[in-house]
């Protein structure tokens, strides 16, 4: 019991002090202290802006196609829009778009199909304001698969157009 009343009094006292109109006594400004020696800035989180890694992480370097298709899916368009805005932000960069196919097709057919894929990605980037002179295309057909297993998952991964920054990226 006793403790409680003491506590109440203390609380009251505090309230009174807070209500007092009298300014608090002025204290001298503390003496300036030496700033700590400049430390190396901590590594920024994520890739350097304008770098290849930045492009790959924040724009996405590849789009995927349906079986025997070279038209762009909604998801592919989204990725290419991000690629275009990145490329428009770094106009000194140049790119190579490589069209690829899964291995479930004959060789020459796939070289032609891979070219169509690269071309459809290129056309979309140009429609988004990327200067055509910055873009080269190549088809690797089915010759450079990302994934070599015999599975539909793998084949789907290999049906792509991969955008590679060939010049002008920050390092």
């Amino acid at each position, binding site marked *: 019991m006793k403790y409680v009343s003491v506590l109440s009094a203390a609380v009251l006292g505090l309230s009174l002090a807070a209500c007092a109109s009298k300014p608090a006594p002025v204290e001298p400004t503390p003496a300036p202290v030496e700033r700590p020696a400049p430390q190396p800035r901590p590594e920024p989180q994520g890739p350097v802006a304008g770098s290849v890694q930045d492009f790959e992480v924040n724009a996405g370097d590849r789009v995927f196609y349906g079986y*025997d298709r070279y038209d762009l899916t909604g998801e592919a368009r989204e990725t290419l829009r991000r690629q275009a805005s990145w490329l428009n932000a770094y106009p000194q960069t140049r790119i190579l778009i490589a069209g690829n196919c899964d291995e479930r097709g*004959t060789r*020459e057919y796939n070289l032609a199909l891979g*070219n169509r894929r690269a071309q459809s990605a290129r056309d979309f980037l140009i429609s988004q304001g990327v200067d055509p002179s910055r873009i080269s295309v*190549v*088809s690797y057909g089915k010759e450079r698969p990302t994934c*070599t297993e015999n599975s539909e998952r793998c084949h789907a991964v290999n049906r792509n157009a991969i955008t590679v920054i060939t010049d002008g990226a920050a390092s």
Partner: protein
Amino acid sequence: MRLLRLSLSALLACLAFVSAAQAQLVVDVTEGHLEPLPIAVPDFVGEPGLASERGADIARVVAADLASSGLFAPIDDEAFIERIEDINLRPRFGDWRVINADALVVGSVEVMDDGRLLVAFRLWDTASEQQLTGLRLTSVPENWRRVAHKLADAVYERLTGEKGYFDTRIVYVAESPGDNGIPVRRLAIMDQDGANPSFLTSRNYMALLPNYSPVSQEITYVSFRDGHATSFLYDLESGRQEALFDSGPSLASEGQSLSARYHPQGHVLAVSAERQGNHDIFRFDLRTRQLRQLTNSPANDVEPSYSPDGERLVFSSTRGGSSQLYVMSADGGEAQRITFGEGRYTTPVWSPRGDLIAFTKQHQGMFSLGVVRADGSGDERILYEGFFVDTPAWSPNGRVILFTRGERRSDGTRYEIWSVDLAGFNLRRLPTQGQASDPAWSPLIE
């Protein structure tokens, strides 16, 4: 002798008839229900030493060539009764008939004063006891395999009435593991039976889709030397290479260009090249370096192949949706569709006989190798069906097709070159070291 000849012709006709009757069916090559002709090829006789060793080698290669055609069944040496000691004496035919040898090949090898080999042979019909053909050849000792192939061609031609194809070579793509997971694909060349393999291109760039000139030791192929697919010419005798369009007009030099196939006279190529993202068929004259566009469709027109008279071209195109085969005049113009089945038709190659076009068909996850009449009439005939098929190539006599066959493995597909005859029988793997694909068959070597 007429009987023997006739019986083999009858055999060939029979093969053709059976396969026609089974059109659209997948032919089970393990059935092999037609009897090949039993033939005896004892070791060629020669003085002990080089002559006798080569004599045995040549007989072995002749027998292997004949066996590989599926039309002949060489008899095991163990069964032989007569020992041939002089090919200028008539054999004891009864000794050969009793072991069921319908035909007998005897030969001799001599080392001449200048070190060259003199090889002679005779082909006997054991029933009529008549010599069917005979031949004498001289050669430097290193070329003994070619001598054997020429003799096998002579036997084949005499007994089937058609040119042989054993003294030929095959250019192909040899695949080996690369440093960074990307396989190394190089052109290589070997004898038709897999002997004497050697590389034609380096590890530094990818090489694909070779085609053999019908008139000279020259090939075209697709090189990635410049970073993208480019048609190249390669002179096999000098080793000289050049990009097809290097010195020509730049019509197609910007985009990729694919496999270039020879006109039967060898002076013109048909090739699919890309402009502004679209593939069309072009004609390229090797003498004038003139390039002329033959198709102009918004779809991909690829894989042109000339008819043996040079008058027409077959190619594959996506102009009708999925890839199908089309035939047009060698000067371009209207194209007539010749395939109508479901699935994707690619890799058309015109038979040297002119009547058929070989193709790859892809349908419901399977691949097949087939032939269809060049005018599109009648049913297509499937010669092989499996997990993967690509790049058919005809033997010079149009009786056999080489093709890339892919076998499914959990860690990827294994590619090898196989052959099958026109009736869908005699499926065989070509002996190559490592994986191989994209066969191109030479003409008979002069």
